[in-house]
């Protein structure tokens, strides 16, 4: 366990139970998932039962208990993107990366996910890699986008 890394995150907060979600978000950002041993320490430090942490960690989609890839690909399948062919973009990505939705590639480079709405319906279909948006994405654009991260 990387204790200094966890201590850095915990030192930003006052150690109250309501700091749980921000702490988990920081751990998720830093580790790309929520490691079990770290959650045990968080439970002791924030005085929140491990059961409660497990409940929160499994409830929100942004948290993951298994390691995620270096880059996270989110394809929007909201109403507009769905109608504009978001499904085809997912299929193409899944085919090119060789993973199903929700899984991570073997080389731990990419995690493929679908989301409800990314809030940019005007640019449908939208996909996101890490923090960057790719609007009006098409099956043809998929290899070009992936190339930027390989």
């Amino acid at each position, binding site marked *: 366990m990387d204790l200094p890394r966890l201590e850095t995150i915990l030192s930003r907060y006052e150690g109250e139970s309501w700091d749980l979600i921000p702490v988990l978000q920081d751990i998720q950002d830093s580790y790309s998932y929520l490691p*079990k041993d770290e959650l045990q320490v968080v439970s002791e430090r924030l005085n*929140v*039962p491990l*059961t409660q942490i*497990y*409940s929160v960690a499994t409830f929100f989609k942004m948290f993951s208990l298994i390691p995620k890839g270096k880059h996270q690909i989110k394809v929007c399948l909201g109403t507009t993107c769905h109608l504009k062919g978001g499904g085809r973009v997912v299929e193409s990505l899944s085919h090119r990366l060789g993973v199903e939705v929700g899984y991570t590639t073997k080389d731990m480079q990419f995690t493929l996910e679908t989301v409800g709405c990314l809030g940019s319906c005007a640019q449908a279909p939208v996909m996101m890699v890490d923090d960057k948006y790719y609007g009006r994405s098409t099956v043809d654009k998929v290899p070009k986008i992936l190339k930027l991260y390989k």
Partner: protein
Amino acid sequence: MVWKISDETAFDTLGEEVRLTINGIPIRAPQNQSLLVTARANGFEIPTLCYHRDLPSEGQCRLCVVEIGEHPHTQIVNSCTYPTSPGLVVQTHSEKVMQARRIVLELLLARTPKAKLIQELAAAHGVYESRFKTDDPEELCILCGLCVRTCREVVGVSAISMKGRTPDKQVATPFLEKSPACIGCGSCAFICPTNVIPYTEKNGVRTIWGRDFELQACTVCGNYIEPKYQLEHWAKITGDPVETFFVCKDCR
């Protein structure tokens, strides 16, 4: 370590007496008492599945819904989590309420078609079959959360919790592993209204949530009392030597 639910939802601060109307009958009750408790205290029966008087209400089952306000500005609320207030007008069995309850029962019947409790309650409301799809015909858990709350509030250890979100929500131990917090008391299995929590006692060993607990025999009569681990937990709370608890309540 006791995880306390926020005070706003617990209604543990009752205010002054207020006047309200339930089914047209004027009633007096302390302010901030839940509508469910108020109605039951005055003889109006409201069906519930997730309510227990010793546990904080969470409004999980939605069976206790009542209609508040006056026509046409009425609202359906959970009576177990809604506080009394001056002049409130409440209907416990209006057409709107009964319709809401029937839908809740229909959904529950689709989730747990084999649960006897749900079948009986549904039949009492005139619901015999469900329009909704059944995912798992063997499912018995209604996700009322009584076990989770009992473990947290009454036992005070919090060994189980809800995992995930619907439709995959379930009661589970952290990481689906053996929970180190569990003391093997079996309170969760006792409180479960549909008897879905697996629990066995065989040759002096109690198995619950995947863990085996050695049962302590009474030093006088030899009958099994409780898991040794649980008695050690009691000893830790009370500060008494653990041997104090090795005599069952009949032999004391």
